[in-house]
């Protein structure tokens, strides 16, 4: 129960709990040093809690090496559970490690939480969005704006992936929207003896976040087999949702639900996106109607497949890849507003200077789909 409580409320609450531990510790010291100490009972309770925390920390220390022998356990900590009692926190970056975590250690409750590398807890680097991890496996039904990809996207000594950007409706069914080059671009037998085809699983998180081991991921959708490239002007792909695996309201990590209607881009328009690598980032549209050439590979780390000339594209500032970086492909570009932003484009390419998006109207028209939203 305690574990599910933390799972439900995520790392934000966990951080609050850790902060609470620190706060209690500081208050405890203050009580001992100040002549204007609170009542005896408060003093007694604080001292008891401090003692319990110390014992928990000692227990944590004794078991940390064994716990972190699991490569997917990225850290341990001492925290407080929902009742304010000391507990050992195990931070795991895979569902497998989370399931393997003990429920208690030496009689002390254990709280296991999803996390990314510890740096994500500081709110810097790839985490984005106030501690929300865009790379960690989620408890289904999952939100979009998360790491994902084709289950078999492993070839030539590399694995590949991108972002599961948004949810769309097509012919009465829900589909995950991402890029062709994230989900469907393996078109030669090449280094993995297979090509992407309709019915293949799409996983969360993508192989790039689970050491290329698909067993540490979950199937969330199946490829539609609709290949938009090289024939069309959009780099898009959709995969039909496996029932129960994706939130039906189309919620995107760190953005929330979006509008079901779309809006055209304008120069100067404030925009944001939620992606696997850079998380929630903001910038503005700097140019429109762009013509650009993009070279595509025929499989993960494979040879050149074709060069596609796109026209009518949206250009967004990228400021040294702070807005969009490798792994963010497939992110949905939306208005930078708080409530139910409207979709503007599907991000697919970039450099350190600028990011590029297919206009969402063209994407939806090509796929004969509509956005899932309010």
């Amino acid at each position, binding site marked *: 129960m305690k574990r599910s409580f933390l799972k439900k409320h995520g790392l934000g609450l966990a951080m609050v709990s850790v902060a609470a531990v620190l706060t209690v510790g500081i208050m405890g010291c203050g009580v001992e040093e100040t002549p204007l100490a609170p009542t005896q009972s408060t003093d007694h309770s604080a001292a008891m809690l401090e003692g319990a925390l110390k014992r928990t920390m000692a227990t944590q220390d004794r078991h940390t090496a064994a716990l972190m022998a699991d490569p997917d356990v990225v850290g341990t900590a001492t925290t407080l559970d929902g009742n304010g009692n000391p507990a050992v926190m195990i931070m795991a970056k895979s569902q497998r490690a989370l399931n393997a975590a003990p429920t208690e250690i030496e009689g002390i409750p254990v709280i296991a939480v999803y996390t990314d590398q510890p740096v994500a807890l500081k709110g810097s680097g790839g985490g984005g969005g106030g501690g929300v991890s865009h790379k960690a496996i989620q408890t289904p039904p999952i939100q979009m704006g998360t790491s994902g990809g084709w289950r078999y996207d492993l070839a030539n000594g590399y694995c*590949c992936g991108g972002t599961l950007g948004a949810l769309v409706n097509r012919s009465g069914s829900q589909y995950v929207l991402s890029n062709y080059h994230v989900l469907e671009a393996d078109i030669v037998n090449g280094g993995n003896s297979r090509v992407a085809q309709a019915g293949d699983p799409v996983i969360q998180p993508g192989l790039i976040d689970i050491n290329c081991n698909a067993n540490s991921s979950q199937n969330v959708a199946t490829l539609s087999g609709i290949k938009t490239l090289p024939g069309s002007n959009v780099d898009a792909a959709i995969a039909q949702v496996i029932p129960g695996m994706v939130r039906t309201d189309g919620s995107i990590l760190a953005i929330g639900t979006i509008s079901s209607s779309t809006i055209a881009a304008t120069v100067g328009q404030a925009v944001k996106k939620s992606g696997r690598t850079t998380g929630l980032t903001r910038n503005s549209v700097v140019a429109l109607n762009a013509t650009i050439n993009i070279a595509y590979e025929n499989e*993960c780390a494979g040879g050149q497949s074709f060069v596609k000339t796109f026209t009518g594209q949206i250009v967004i500032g990228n400021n040294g890849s702070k807005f969009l970086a490798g792994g963010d492909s497939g992110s949905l570009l939306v208005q930078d507003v708080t409530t139910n932003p409207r979709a503007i484009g599907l991000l697919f390419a970039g450099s350190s200077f600028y990011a590029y998006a297919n206009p969402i109207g063209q994407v939806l028209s090509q796929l004969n789909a509509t956005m899932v939203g309010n």
Partner: protein
Amino acid sequence: MKLLGMLIFGSVLFLSCAVTEEGGNAVAKKDINAVMQAHTAELMALPGVTGLAISELEDKTPCIWVMILEPSVELEWAIPDSLDGHPVRVVVSGEIKPMDGN
């Protein structure tokens, strides 16, 4: 030869712009998107040009962006300051690639 080709191309574009601008008051400007489209093939054929787009100057005047791979004096010279009366700005885009990860 590449540099010579760029200079010749640039001169032709420049003359074309100059002729248009001389009579600029008499005729309405062509639509900027149509102008960009009309010159897309020639501009995209220049080595180092990565793309074209429509943007705005600081005063909100629409302009044509010519995106280039890296700073290049030769390209700056080869690309005209305006096309059919519309200002042209050369901007460095870097290499544009799909943004998947591996």
